[in-house]
């Protein structure tokens, strides 16, 4: 398609095939000139009283053919842009007919001689032998009658063309143009062929095509009842008028217009006869067809309504993602399509862990009323479990329907809505009368139900996707929040290096670690594990974080801190939730570490000489006992520090990690790895332990939350020359880098 630069060009491009305005004006002038030339020709014939020379006569016929041909073209262009309804087509044709044929009929009666007064004359005022007009009146009459009759013939063909070519096919279009061609051809032959048997044979092909085209009536079915009434009336009038005109054309009676037209131009006479014949036949077939179609109009309109309702629902399939709107559209569409009087939709919903059916939409009725007059659930259960359409032709006879005659449920139908082999719900429709649903109604409802199923399925998928996205967004936020609760950087500890990391099996976890400087010489460490995993654990983890930062400064000693923490958490922990914690307080001045274990995995420790052990002091998990027992059960362990001492605090996710053979990593492997790498500083040791664990499990994902904190005591004498460097495993697996909490102490 050519690219049109502006609106101006588009207008031109659209109008140019019809010729410009100037061309049309020029053509109109030419038509007028041709007509005047024709008039002059007859005037001269009358003046001379002699037949024209053959050359002149042929020139006259050519001028007439060109003039009316161009008139046809002009009228066609003019009318083609005004498409109208069939009623309008018949109405305008009738009006034009009254006007044009009125002129013709008026003219043929002006100054008409009494029949038979001029003996030997075939037409009034025309010399039969010389074929010349005998008076000026005859010349005027012949011209005007010809104009009126032929113009109407042209208009008839142009107007009915719209009807014949309505919903055209290739063959119908071909038939139409073949008919026009044959009419023109037959008209031309009239110049040579005298009336008689030969002429009738020549007429035959045109008549056959006229008959074929007269049965192109597809526009009729689209009319409403009222329109059909109007059009049949108009076509009857047009039929009668054309019949009168036709008789006038073909009659031998000298007073009739036919003889004058025949004199004016045998060609135009033949054309008019054929055009009127087509008009008569078309009006007759239209009239009969309209009358026969009248009783079926309502049925047809109902079908069209069904179609429209179906189309609107199909559009909905791709558009509506709001469930409520969709439900009401699904129930209202069968009503709009006149398939039922009432309709309602039952959808299974998961509520309180059980699937319950619910009427989600009802048209022309209410869920409350339905529940009163029928057992909606039982009907739903049957259709939904059998997956077959349920048709109760006499609904009140069914034990599940308690409707009385006035309740509007005489017959009932339930169609399962199934998409991707999953039941989406059941669409019910009912009619007031019993036996209300015919087979084709049921078929239409089924097609409709299939569309509705897809629409419902789409809506569900959309909602699921939306929920999933929202959930994942919220979990992302939760993870971010939790990551902020873990230390972003570990505070430096004089004489010691610390490294720590934590990963969650899910987006959020229940593990916690932290380091806080309590005062100038003491630093508190904590590693905790909330029972369970996921979101609930994450909330308690957050609570523990708050407690650690608030309480460790006020009650730094392990027993005091843990007792306070237990008391604080008792109020909020669920009965089946507890937190295991290990807490240590490092005193740089005293070179001493005090540890207490509240139900947590024992701290692994090793000295420079390689003597390793687990510090397993007594203590219960936070939340197990909410009274005095907790404090009584808790014991501290004081450990004097020697340079090179290493302490490893961890959660059970580490020691309970399993490999492909389902073996646990266990305490012994942890201790062995610790022994091997004990000379390294905290960061390297931390990385070495994680590497050893991953080598053992053979994978880099986590079944449980895992936290590891390594503290190495270098000795106070080294303070200043050695700062703690904390790091996490890197490099080897991207997963661990991405998930681990990198904690580097600030210088």
């Amino acid at each position, binding site marked *: 398609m050519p690219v049109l630069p502006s609106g101006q060009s588009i207008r031109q491009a659209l109008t140019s095939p019809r010729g410009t305005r100037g061309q049309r004006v020029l053509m109109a002038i030419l038509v007028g000139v041709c007509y005047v030339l024709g008039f002059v020709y007859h005037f001269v014939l009358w003046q001379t009283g002699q037949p024209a020379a053959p050359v002149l006569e042929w020139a006259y016929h050519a001028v007439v053919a060109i003039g009316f041909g161009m008139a046809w073209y002009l009228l066609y262009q003019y009318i083609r842009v005004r498409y109208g309804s069939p009623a309008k087509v018949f109405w305008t044709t009738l009006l034009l007919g009254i006007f044009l044929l009125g002129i013709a009929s008026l003219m043929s009666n002006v100054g008409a001689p009494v029949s038979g007064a001029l003996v030997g004359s075939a037409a009034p005022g025309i010399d039969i032998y010389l074929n010349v007009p005998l008076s000026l009146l005859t010349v005027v009459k012949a011209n005007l009658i010809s104009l009126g009759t032929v113009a109407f013939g042209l208009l008839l063909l142009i107007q009915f063309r719209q009807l014949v070519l309505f919903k055209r096919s290739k063959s119908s279009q071909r038939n139409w143009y073949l008919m026009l061609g044959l009419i023109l051809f037959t008209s031309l032959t009239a110049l040579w062929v005298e009336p008689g048997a030969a002429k009738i044979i020549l007429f035959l092909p045109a008549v056959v095509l006229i008959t074929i085209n007269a049965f192109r009536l597809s526009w009729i079915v689209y009319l409403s009842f009222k329109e059909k009434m109007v059009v049949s009336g108009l076509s009857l009038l047009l039929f009668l008028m054309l019949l009168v005109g036709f008789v006038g054309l073909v009659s031998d009676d000298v007073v009739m217009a036919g003889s004058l037209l025949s004199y004016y131009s045998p060609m135009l006479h033949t054309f008019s006869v054929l055009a009127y014949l087509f008009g008569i036949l078309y009006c007759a077939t239209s009239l009969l067809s309209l009358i026969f179609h009248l009783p079926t109009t309502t049925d047809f309109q109902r079908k069209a309504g069904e179609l429209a309702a179906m189309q609107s629902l199909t559009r909905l399939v791709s558009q509506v993602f709001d469930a409520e709107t969709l439900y009401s559209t699904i129930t209202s569409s069968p009503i709009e399509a006149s398939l039922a009087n009432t309709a309602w939709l039952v959808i299974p919903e998961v509520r309180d862990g059980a699937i319950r059916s619910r009427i989600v939409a009802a048209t022309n009725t209410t869920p409350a009323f339905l529940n009163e007059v029928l057992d909606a659930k039982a009907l739903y259960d049957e259709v939904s479990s059998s997956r077959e359409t349920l048709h109760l032709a006499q609904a009140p006879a069914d034990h599940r329907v308690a409707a009385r005659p006035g309740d509007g449920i005489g017959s009932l139908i339930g169609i399962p809505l199934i998409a991707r082999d999953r039941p989406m719900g059941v669409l019910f429709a009912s009619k007031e009368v019993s036996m209300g649903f015919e087979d084709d109604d049921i078929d239409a409802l089924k097609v409709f139900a299939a569309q509705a199923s897809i629409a419902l399925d789409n809506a569900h998928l959309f909602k699921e996707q939306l929920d999933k996205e929202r959930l994942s967004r919220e979990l992302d936020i939760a993870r971010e929040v939790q990551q902020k609760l873990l230390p972003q950087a570990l505070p430096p500890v004089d004489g010691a290096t610390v490294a720590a990391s934590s990963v969650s099996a899910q987006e959020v976890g229940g593990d916690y670690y932290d380091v806080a400087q309590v005062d100038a010489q003491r630093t508190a460490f904590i590693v905790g594990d909330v*029972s*369970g995993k996921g979101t609930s654990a994450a909330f308690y983890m957050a609570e523990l974080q708050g407690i650690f930062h608030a309480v460790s400064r006020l009650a730094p000693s392990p027993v005091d801190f843990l007792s306070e923490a237990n008391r604080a958490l008792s109020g909020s922990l669920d009965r*089946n*939730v507890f937190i295991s914690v290990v807490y240590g307080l490092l005193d740089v001045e005293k070179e001493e570490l005090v540890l207490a274990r509240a139900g947590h995995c*024992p701290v692994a420790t090793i000295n420079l000489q390689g003597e390793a052990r687990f510090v397993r002091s007594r203590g*219960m*998990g936070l939340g*197990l*006992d909410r009274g005095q027992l907790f404090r009584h*059960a808790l014991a501290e362990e004081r450990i004097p520090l020697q340079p090179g001492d290493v302490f490893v605090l961890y959660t059970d996710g580490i020691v309970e990690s399993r490999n492909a053979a389902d073996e646990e990593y266990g305490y012994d492997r942890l201790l062995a790895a610790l022994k091997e790498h004990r000379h390294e500083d905290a960061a390297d040791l931390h990385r070495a332990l994680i590497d050893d664990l991953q080598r053992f499990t053979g994978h880099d994902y986590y079944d449980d939350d895992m936290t590891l904190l390594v503290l190495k005591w270098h000795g106070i004498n080294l303070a200043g020359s050695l700062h703690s460097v904390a790091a996490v495993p890197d490099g080897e697996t991207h997963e661990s880098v991405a998930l681990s909490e990198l904690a580097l102490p600030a210088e």
Partner: protein
Amino acid sequence: MLDLKGELDAHTAPELEAAIEKCRDEQKYSLIINGAALQYISSAGLGVFMAYIEEMREAGGDIKIAALQPKVFNVFDLLGFPLLFDIVEDEAEALERFDKAPS
């Protein structure tokens, strides 16, 4: 008397919960959990015992845990469960203890 087998973690905990609730609904408050075939217990599993112990004791009963494997016992022990629960060698001992305590 409930026998546990396999692993008790967040996925299997609801089964144990349901079993204990069934006992409670039948007004059987004295439960013995036999852990001889229990391979592994997670913190969520331990939570189940926590959730019901108080209720059972208030109703005059108890939950006694018997015949735990050493590794599983270690988990109970680390958390200080022996301070709260009667954890005994075998079922016979558990029964004996129920008999001794007036209920």
